[in-house]
């Protein structure tokens, strides 16, 4: 047959254009198609070629066969736990006891790797702190004890239990006194366990002791209203906040809670409703940095300043004054005092709040009186909703130590406290300890105290523990284990119970506690209630539980240890709801509430203590569950005598005063063997890995001190040698400040990171009736040349002398490109002139009428002006196929609400496996943090002649979290010779680690210097053994398996948590829907307690980040470079009310500079 010329077709389309109907598997073409062309297969090989190839093939195969491939064994699950899916994280609700807030713990394949905030917890509302973020690393610290210890030698639990119990029995039988020394406990079941212990050993006293004490507040309330409480403060209801040295955003009481509240009254992106914040302090704290008016004030003057404010308020209220406080340092003028008092008085109806950070009950009493005058109780302070954190009692501790020294204590059980390290008179404690017959510690490591005791019964890490908590009245949190105990440790409560002969699992004990409280409920109702609480992590009286089904995060109520207890299906939502409501009803209206019984336990404790008689609470006063806040008005305190005490304290103060403060990461030093926290630069001083004496630059220049000098600090009988000096703008002349929590001296293994870092200054704490964190003293220079690891070395003032003349305009300009600041007045005037709110519109005409709050370099925000379009050398991504089609990621950072708390920095480090590089490397400016917080100082005063003095004594401070800006016109991308930086179609600069050859050109060309280089191999490298996330098998368990550990010699940087984006996309895909705003949360965003960071799709006009981007306060860094950043900053707005405090940017001069 001849050739068939017919053409068969199925449709007209096929006939006309056969290609168009070909099914396409890949829209953008088959991968690899361009590599292998069809013509490549038309090979013409000769016989010779065949022989050559065969010869090569045989020899290659022979050579390859010479290497023995190592056999790697993987053991699969015999029975896969139902909740563990490889690659899928599980989240468990728990409670971070040392920060006092609820968290979610992210686990992967059975190991906790990350702490997230729990948005169901009314305290954290999804936020976390730096210390909380870092606590997951402590779980994998090889310094923890791996087994119980007797006299420094590892032993077995049987031995410890037998000997401790028989010892205790003997002591009880002989009528000896047993003391349990713990830190402040907010756990009802723990207190019940101690009460149980007491049943067996009736001679037991329980003393609670906090390294940083809040006993002054409790004492003040005890004398004022007869109840030893810490009330709840609610900053979110305040219009004017005046804080006397209470660093409530950084370290005071519950900074996380306060930051949440504070950010809600400080955000002006959409409204102009902004609280006014005044801070009196001597040391520049986070809180002082955010204040609208910061009044430097010596510690000794703070009480008197409060008297002055009280006097002003009293005269307005028609009450009598409390004595003449006299004059203060030059910063603290009577005009300012009057102004503060007037602001407080004017806002008393809307909500005023005065806080005192002092641990002096006199100051706290005066603070109560001022708040009374302002009518704050019931508005901004709730004395009914008492805070159960920091229940330590300094007097009891003092009593215990003197008892010990007198030989009055036969057995001491230390739980959660470390007085050998952090008690001011540690020597006295140690002396007493030596006289105690039986000493037991429940510490997780051989710390300063547990090195000196006979038995150490190591406690679980909190991520291995069960516990319950009652941080605030009416709220109950549960901790649950997220991993079985790694070492041979035992929950401390179980130890206490077993020594009290009440054996059992603590889990059952907690359930028993809770079941006792809700006794009216059926078992089934309790199970549901329990599981729901466990799932949520929190139970709030009067609030319904969350609906598990609607919860987007996979909270799971799983405990690995006690899975047998979980018998019912959680998905039975009907039962859940009914059970919940019943439980809530029962608990609220029941005869005995949970809170009440805890209080009983507490009172039990108070009855046995000897020193609280003066203000012990009678059981009748606590029989009613609620107190009327108005009852506090009736309290009677002699204001005049308090005032005269405070005034005389001021008048008798010495020239040099020392304040002791905490840093946001290390806090009181309990978890200082945590390299993430040690490497975390202090937000204000930007120093990592050390504590130091902050000295005012003015004072230093007058007295000849320099950065890096070593001084000895003397207060009373205590002298501390070799404290390095840091010239710290904002430190008041005549005062020095030193951070607590450093200078650990643990067992070499237990403290292998922390030992010897910094200096322990707890001995400077003054022991009066309560511990005082400021004291009088003197300093003298003993040496010099000590180098501190600063991540930021230059302030504006350090521009070289030759530049001083030019410095002023250019510094202002530079700052204006980088951090922008304006006043609320300017903003309101600007918005008024535009005739609408802040949501849209910006001043296209420059600074015509009412200067714009932000200098707009380019009018068309986000794009360069049309007339310059053609000048662009960068690729036009938008014209490129598929770029920015659906997603264009962007981030916004609200400088106004950001407090510089550092939670984001540690969150980023934890999420992205960022190595710790150590002090030496930080000193060489090689810290690897992808996200850093830049700190800028500015003078609050525009008068040139006063500038230097005021600048360094009381600068205004701005924090700016800085991560990769993900420029659309990225300078880093086009200079990489090997294409290791890729611009994703979603606008992310993707660093491809395994393509990078490490030329570092990208880092040089980055205007923001956010790129970080792996100078060394930070993993498996003895030189970096403090980086135990990568240098020990145990430490490596904390690594996020979704993120590569970067090799030596490659560049790395923030990638907008691309692994989270991918995870969210997968979830959306399985649910067959588009990504929604909020599906992707970067680690920094999730950690931020101030909601300052938003992340989302800027293509979506309704996304949160788009709204911020469109706002009139939004700007981008160094916009004149036209790098087209994807990170939008919101201008810092200060609610400036005093003319002298106006930010420099408002001055005519700078506005004209453009």
């Amino acid at each position: 047959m001849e050739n068939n010329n017919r053409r068969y077709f199925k449709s007209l389309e096929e006939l006309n254009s056969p290609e168009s109907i070909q099914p396409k598997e890949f829209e953008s073409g088959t991968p690899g198609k361009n590599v292998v062309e069809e013509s490549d297969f038309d090979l013409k090989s000769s016989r010779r070629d065949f022989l050559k190839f065969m010869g090569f093939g045989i020899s290659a195969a022979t050579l390859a066969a010479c290497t023995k491939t190592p056999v790697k064994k993987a053991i699969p699950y015999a029975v896969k736990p139902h909740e563990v899916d490889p690659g899928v994280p599980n989240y468990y609700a728990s409670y971070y006891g040392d920060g006092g807030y609820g968290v979610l713990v992210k686990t992967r394949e059975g190991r906790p790797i990350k702490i997230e905030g729990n948005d169901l917890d009314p305290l954290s509302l999804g936020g976390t702190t730096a210390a909380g973020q870092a606590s997951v690393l402590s779980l994998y610290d090889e310094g923890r004890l791996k087994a119980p210890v007797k006299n420094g030698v590892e032993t077995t639990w049987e031995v410890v239990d037998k000997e401790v119990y028989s010892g205790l029995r003997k002591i009880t039988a002989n009528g000896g006194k047993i003391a349990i020394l713990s830190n402040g406990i907010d756990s009802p079941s723990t207190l019940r366990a101690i009460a149980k212990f007491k049943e067996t050993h009736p001679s037991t006293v329980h003393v609670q002791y906090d390294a940083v004490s809040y006993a002054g507040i409790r004492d003040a309330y005890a004398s004022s209203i007869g109840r030893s409480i810490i009330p709840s403060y609610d900053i979110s209801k305040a219009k004017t906040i005046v804080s006397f040295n209470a660093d409530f955003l950084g370290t005071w009481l519950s900074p996380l809670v306060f930051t949440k509240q504070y950010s809600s009254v400080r955000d002006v992106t959409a409204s102009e409703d902004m609280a006014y914040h005044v801070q009196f302090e001597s040391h520049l704290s986070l809180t002082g940095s955010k204040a609208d008016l910061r009044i430097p004030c010596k510690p000794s003057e703070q009480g008197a300043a409060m008297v002055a404010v009280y006097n002003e308020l009293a005269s307005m209220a028609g009450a009598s004054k409390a004595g003449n406080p006299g004059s203060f340092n030059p910063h603290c003028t009577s005009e300012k005092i009057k102004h503060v008092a007037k602001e407080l008085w004017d806002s008393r109806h809307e909500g005023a709040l005065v806080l005192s950070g002092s641990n002096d009950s006199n100051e706290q009493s005066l603070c109560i009186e001022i708040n009374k005058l302002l009518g704050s109780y019931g508005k901004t302070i709730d004395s009914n909703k008492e805070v159960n954190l920091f229940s330590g009692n300094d007097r009891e501790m003092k009593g215990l130590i003197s008892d010990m020294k007198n030989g009055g204590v036969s057995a001491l059980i230390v739980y959660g406290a470390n007085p050998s390290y952090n008690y001011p008179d540690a020597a006295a404690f140690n002396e007493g300890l030596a006289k105690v017959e039986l000493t037991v510690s429940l510490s997780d490591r051989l710390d300063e105290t547990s090195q000196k005791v006979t038995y150490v019964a190591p406690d679980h890490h909190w991520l291995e523990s069960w516990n319950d908590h009652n941080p605030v009245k009416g709220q109950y949190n549960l901790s649950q284990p997220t991993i079985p105990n790694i070492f041979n440790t035992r929950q401390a409560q179980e130890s206490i119970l077993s020594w009290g002969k009440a054996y059992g699992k603590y889990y059952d004990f907690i359930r028993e506690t809770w079941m006792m409280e809700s006794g009216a409920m059926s078992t089934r109702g309790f199970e549901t209630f329990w599981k729901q609480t466990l799932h949520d992590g929190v139970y709030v009286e009067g609030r319904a539980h969350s609906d598990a089904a609607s919860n987007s995060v996979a909270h799971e109520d799983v405990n690995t240890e006690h899975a047998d207890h979980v018998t019912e299906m959680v998905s039975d939502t009907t039962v859940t709801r009914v059970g919940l409501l019943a439980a809530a009803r029962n608990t609220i209206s029941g005869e005995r509430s949970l809170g009440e019984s805890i209080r009983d336990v507490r009172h039990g404790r108070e009855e046995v203590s000897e020193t609280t008689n003066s203000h012990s609470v009678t059981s009748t006063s606590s029989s009613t569950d609620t107190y009327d806040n108005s009852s506090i008005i009736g309290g009677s305190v002699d204001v005049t005598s308090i005032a005269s005490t405070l005034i005389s304290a001021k008048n008798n103060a010495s020239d040099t005063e020392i304040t002791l403060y905490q840093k946001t990461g290390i806090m009181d030093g309990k978890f200082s063997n945590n390299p993430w926290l040690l490497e975390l630069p202090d937000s204000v001083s930007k120093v990592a890995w050390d504590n130091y004496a902050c000295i005012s630059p003015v004072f230093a220049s007058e007295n000849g001190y320099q950065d890096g000098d070593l001084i000895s600090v003397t207060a009373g009988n205590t002298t501390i040698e070799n404290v390095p000096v840091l010239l710290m703008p904002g430190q008041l002349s005549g005062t020095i400040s030193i951070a607590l929590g450093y200078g650990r001296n643990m067992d070499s293994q237990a403290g292998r990171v922390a030992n010897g870092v910094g200096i322990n200054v707890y001995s400077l704490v003054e022991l009066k009736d309560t511990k005082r964190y400021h004291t009088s003293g003197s300093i003298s220079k003993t040496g010099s040349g000590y180098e501190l690891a600063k991540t930021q070395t230059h302030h504006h003032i350090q521009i070289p002398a030759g530049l001083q003349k030019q410095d002023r305009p250019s510094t202002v300009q530079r700052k204006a490109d980088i951090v922008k600041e304006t006043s609320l007045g300017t903003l309101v005037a600007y918005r008024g002139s535009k005739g609408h709110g802040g949501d849209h519109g910006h001043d296209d005409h420059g600074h015509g009428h009412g200067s714009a709050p932000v200098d707009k370099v380019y009018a068309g925000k986000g794009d360069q002006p049309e007339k310059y379009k053609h000048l662009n050398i960068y690729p036009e991504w938008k014209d490129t196929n598929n770029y920015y089609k659906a997603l264009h990621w962007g981030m916004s950072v609200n400088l106004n609400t950001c407090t510089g708390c550092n939670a984001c920095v540690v969150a980023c480090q934890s999420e992205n496996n960022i190595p710790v590089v150590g002090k030496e490397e930080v000193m060489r400016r090689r810290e690897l943090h992808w996200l850093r917080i830049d700190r800028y100082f500015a003078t609050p005063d525009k008068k040139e002649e006063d500038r230097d003095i005021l600048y360094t004594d009381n600068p205004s401070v701005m924090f700016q979290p800085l991560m990769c800006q993900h420029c659309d016109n990225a300078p880093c991308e086009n200079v990489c010779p090997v294409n290791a930086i890729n611009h994703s179609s979603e606008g992310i600069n993707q660093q491809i680690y395994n393509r990078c050859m490490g030329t570092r050109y990208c880092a040089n060309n980055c205007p923001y210097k956010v790129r970080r280089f792996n100078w060394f191999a930070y993993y498996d490298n003895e030189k970096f053994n403090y980086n135990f996330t990568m240098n020990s098998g145990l430490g490596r368990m904390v690594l996020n398996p979704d993120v590569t550990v970067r090799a030596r010699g490659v560049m790395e940087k923030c990638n907008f948590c691309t692994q989270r984006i991918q995870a969210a996309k997968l979830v959306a895909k399985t649910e067959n829907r588009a990504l929604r705003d909020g599906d992707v949360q970067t680690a920094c965003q999730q950690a931020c307690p101030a909601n300052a960071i938003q992340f989302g799709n800027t293509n979506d006009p309704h996304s949160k980040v788009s709204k911020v981007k469109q706002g009139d306060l939004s700007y981008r860094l160094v916009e004149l470079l036209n790098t087209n950043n994807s990170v939008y900053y919101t201008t810092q707005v200060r609610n400036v009310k005093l003319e002298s405090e106006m930010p420099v940017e408002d001055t005519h001069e700078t506005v004209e500079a453009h």
Partner: protein
Amino acid sequence: MVEAPIREPLILGNKTYKQISDDVIGPIENKPSMSWLAGFTASVLVLGLFAVGVGITLFEGIGAWGLQRTVGWAFDITNFVFWVGIGHAGTLISAVLLLFRQHWRTSINRSAEAMTIFAVVCAGQFPLIHAGRPWVAYWIPPLPNDLGSLWPNFNSPLAWDVFAISTYLTVSLVFWFCGLVPDFALVRDRATKKIPKFIYGFVSLGWTGSLKQWNRFELVSLILAGMATPLVLSVHTIVSFDFATSVIPGWHTTIFPPYFVAGAIFSGFGMVHTLLIVVRKVMNLEAYITINHLEQMAKVIMLTGTMVGIAYGTEMFMAMYSGYEYEMFTFMNRAFGPYAWAYWIMMSCNVISPQVYWFKKARTSPVFMFIISIFVNIGMWFERFVIIVTSLHRDFLVSSWSMYTPTWVEMAILIGSFGLFFTLFFLFSKYLPMIAVSEVKATYKLTQRGKDRDALNGKSIPSDIVYDHDYSYSADKLEKKTIEESLSESHDH
């Protein structure tokens, strides 16, 4: 060709062709002198320092250097640009001056070319060792690979560098080698021992000195000179793009290409000065590398030094005139900031010191010229240091400002790179003819034979002249003379 009768002879001392051959080839044939041995040993020791520095860097990582998050380049790229710059004089002398028929170049071009190649070899070390992962450096050339068509980023000046430097090295090497061929043949023909005869015979590629070979030789020289000349301009232009295409104030400058080229020639001539002033003394080549040669180079140094000075001034002016505050700051910071000392070393060494060459006394005194040449070397090293470090250490965000201090490893590598350079140079001076014998002889005839020479020397040609094999003809002679004339001339021998 116009000869200037009053011009001083390029080669002094009434050399005969044989004497020239003896003078130049002698060191190859004889045992090394003590001074050579001492110098070579010292160089190898310093090269050992280089090996130690590089070894530590490769073993530990770039962290062994003083670089950090803000200053990502310092000594490494400074050294790279410094050595590349030095590599400019050789090609300029051999190629550009060849094209311009500057006969004085013949005495110095061989060593200048050698210097070029060795300098480029030194320069080439730095891009390699400065990379975090040098073992993947082969990713930069566009090699076929199994990752799809994952090629280098042709937008990156670092990729351009690779092409520019490798092209330059190749062309320079070929040019140098071609010029060496007739001289290799001369060594071969004079050699008495078997092994040298074989080796030099091998590398002389069967050179017989036939007319055809001379013709090809001259043509190849011209073609290579034509190819090398634009490279002189392009290499440093492209190196300057490493900085000019960035966004960093102080780097992002359009003046960089001409400014870098001028600086490179400046530093290259400086280094030629340094070397030749020593070499002519040590190797007894004063007759060939005369004061006249040195003076010519001093003039080039003065010219290019002035050009560099104008470039500095222009940069500063443009920064102040631009209204671009970051750039204004960068330049003020250069001049008055913490690295001001480096800036003023650069200014005084590069701009002020060559100005003494306005005085004839200065540019005819070898000692003085040696001192100035050292200044030029130092100044030009600091120029690169100033450009790189002072621009980076304080750029846009005040928060990132920092100071850079080198570690001993970097110092060792910098010093050691001189060891590498001098080791190669000593080897060259021992095993290769340091002066282009054939070209010198050609020049010699042109400038010194006949009545001019007689007039200058005041005497006639000695009668006892014994000509050895003389293959030297210059290109211009070929143009002028007929083949018969040439043949008849060679019959003279």
